């Protein structure tokens, strides 16, 4: 069970390596540059939706990027929830 934090855009190798590493039981939190991977109808979003991992995005970063109504279906979390998740998952790995 891993908590992956993805802080890299859809054209990065980090994004692809994160996808390759994530498995069932893991969660991927999109933050910073990573929120652009959630864009509706994008190639990256299609790949994300195929991942067996649970997808989440940091609300503040989604708003900052102007994606509040362009990243549908991905649950948004605030900083408190992010902290709670990092306590819940035994291992965390960052991708940037």
């Amino acid at each position, binding site marked *: 069970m*891993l908590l992956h934090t993805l802080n890299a855009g859809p054209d990065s190798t980090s994004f692809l390596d994160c996808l390759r590493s994530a*498995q069932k039981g893991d969660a991927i939190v999109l933050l910073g540059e990573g929120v652009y991977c959630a864009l509706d109808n994008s190639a990256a979003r299609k790949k994300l939706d195929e991942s067996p991992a649970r997808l989440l995005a940091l609300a503040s970063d989604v708003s900052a990027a102007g994606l509040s109504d362009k990243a549908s279906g991905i649950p948004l979390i605030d900083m408190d929830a992010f902290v709670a998740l990092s306590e819940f998952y035994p*291992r965390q790995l960052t991708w940037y």
Partner: protein
Amino acid sequence: MQRPIVTVWSLLAVDVSEKDRKRSLVVMRQSPYGSSLSRASVDLALAMGAFEQDYDLLFMGPGVLQLVAAQDSEKIGVKNIGRILSSLPLYDMESVYVDAAALERYGLNEASLVLPVKLLDDPSLRSLLNDSDHLIGC
């Protein structure tokens, strides 16, 4: 009076009994000379070795480029990452794992690397991530 500063080194040097020992996996994802990040992660590995921490290295994505043999960084004025890495087995590092897909993508193979490695396909890579006690992404 100045307060004493707690260094990373003193935090790492915690004495733990054998059964509580944790195994760390340092995930190296940066190319050697594009930024100072690869050097920082190599220093981390050296420090972990110096303080008898159990750790393995995983080179993934552009990180596999750190292992390319015959690096000569003298003229760009930075330490030779390949040479430092080739000395890591002297510092109690257990295993060096390499992302086989990345190696192939770059047209490299085991023979082009500075030290003996264990190649991992995607499923083994995921198991390794899941089986390590701590993960450090670099």
